[in-house]
């Protein structure tokens, strides 16, 4: 439903950041982008989300229907002057009449924030703010969720909770997604497919094929999960050797 071929990008007068990356994301598929700092992960995500225009190559969004995007950033990026409810309704307000008015109560209940509609962000904890930003991304009923290191600023326990929340929401709502992460564990746990990047290119691909029927702890200790983590680590190490 989303594909891109031969993407190249550099800022004016700058070093090339991306050189010939190709990506395909199927409907409902969760894809992780992993790689060392400065390898072009975030740039690739921004190109695919349409926030930047590639110098070369193109991004095709599915032709059969209009693809609705959602986005989650590393920090919650809420409007401090607006209530939780107003923040969640922002995508609807901006895109106008195309979308049905989202049910804020339901969305907030889904991210475990029921009853906080009229709070301002200043009165929320870091984890609560992050969950508001997820509710905001979901309020546009996205087909694809772009996430740029979405939980990097959270502590480990909160991060695990958010990972499980994300999987649960994905199962309920059926959206696909592309997320950038620094954590191989998070990538292996969340993604259907992991793209490992190095030096502006995709250098390898892994599909963990976890048994999602099990409980979270069981998944995190399963052989498939640990195999995926070590494969990713091996790929990252190869990429580093080639660069160095």
């Amino acid at each position, binding site marked *: 439903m989303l594909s891109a071929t031969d993407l190249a990008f550099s800022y004016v007068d700058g070093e090339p950041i991306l050189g010939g990356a190709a990506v395909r994301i199927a409907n409902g598929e969760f894809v992780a982008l992993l790689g060392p700092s400065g390898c072009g992960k975030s740039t690739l995500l921004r190109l695919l989300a349409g*926030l930047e225009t590639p110098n070369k190559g193109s991004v095709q969004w599915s032709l059969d229907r209009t693809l609705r995007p959602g986005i989650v950033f590393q920090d919650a990026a809420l409007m401090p*002057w607006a209530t939780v409810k107003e923040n969640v309704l922002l995508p609807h307000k*901006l895109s106008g009449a195309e979308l049905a008015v989202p049910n804020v109560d339901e969305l907030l209940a889904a991210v475990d924030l029921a009853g906080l509609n009229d709070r301002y962000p200043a009165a929320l904890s870091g984890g609560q703010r992050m969950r508001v930003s997820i509710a905001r991304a979901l309020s546009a009923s996205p087909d694809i969720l772009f996430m740029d290191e979405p939980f990097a600023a959270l502590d480990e326990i909160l991060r695990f909770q958010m990972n499980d929340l994300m999987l649960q929401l994905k199962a309920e709502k059926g959206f696909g997604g592309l997320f950038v992460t620094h954590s191989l564990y998070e990538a292996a746990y969340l993604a259907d497919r992991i793209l490992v990047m190095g030096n502006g290119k995709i250098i390898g691909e892994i599909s963990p094929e976890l048994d999602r029927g099990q409980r979270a702890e069981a998944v995190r200790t399963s052989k498939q999960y640990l195999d995926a983590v070590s494969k990713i680590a091996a790929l990252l190490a190869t990429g580093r050797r080639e660069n160095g």
Partner: protein
Amino acid sequence: MVRFLLPIGTLFGLMFLWSLSIEIFEISKFILPAPVDVWHALLRDFNSLLMSLFSTLKITMIALFCAVVSGVGLALLFSLSKHFESAVYPFAVILQVTPIVSIAPLVLIWVGIDNVERALAIIAWLAAFFPILTNMSAGLRATDRNLEDLFKLYGAGPWQRFWGLSWPTALPYLLASLKVSGGLALIGAVVAEFVAGSGGATGIAWRILEAGNRLQTDKMFAGLILLTTLGVIIFYGLQAVEYWLLRYRRNG
């Protein structure tokens, strides 16, 4: 409560020392009147001083209003065009760094001969305008990068972007500069009245100047007290506006 009582206690202590030193050193009331003399002067001339104070307040408010309109307007134009900013900003700096007292006589000659109030308002505006321009410019540049992306992703138009993102981001900057500019407008108005002298000015600064010429030192102090009170009221009034408009920043 202690925060409120301490400065008042200090004030009474200082007034006591003031009265005492006048007694001990036998200072003439033309040089330094006792607090009680100042109080009597304040009661005696209260009506005329208050009328003058309102005249100064009017000039200050007109100047502050014009400073907000012009400062915000120019900052908006700056945010729209870098070239315009490069062309105009140096002149705003020149206006800012030139001492207001030295421009005031020129302004009075140009526009003050048939309408002194207009000249006073222009001088006060010159004093108040710059902080609003620079703060508002900084505020318009301070938008959250991620929120900008979000607005772009959902196809926001330029007006949605402005009212939904740029304006609320810049508002705290504008309100902070208002507190500075409110005081500067008052100072500008007072300076203008001093420079205008007897050329038709009727404000509180002119009353102080007039009392000085007549060696009514107690009345000078009375005028000064009213002027200071006005400055404090302007500051805390604007602070209250800020507190109310930015109430979302407080927890709970």
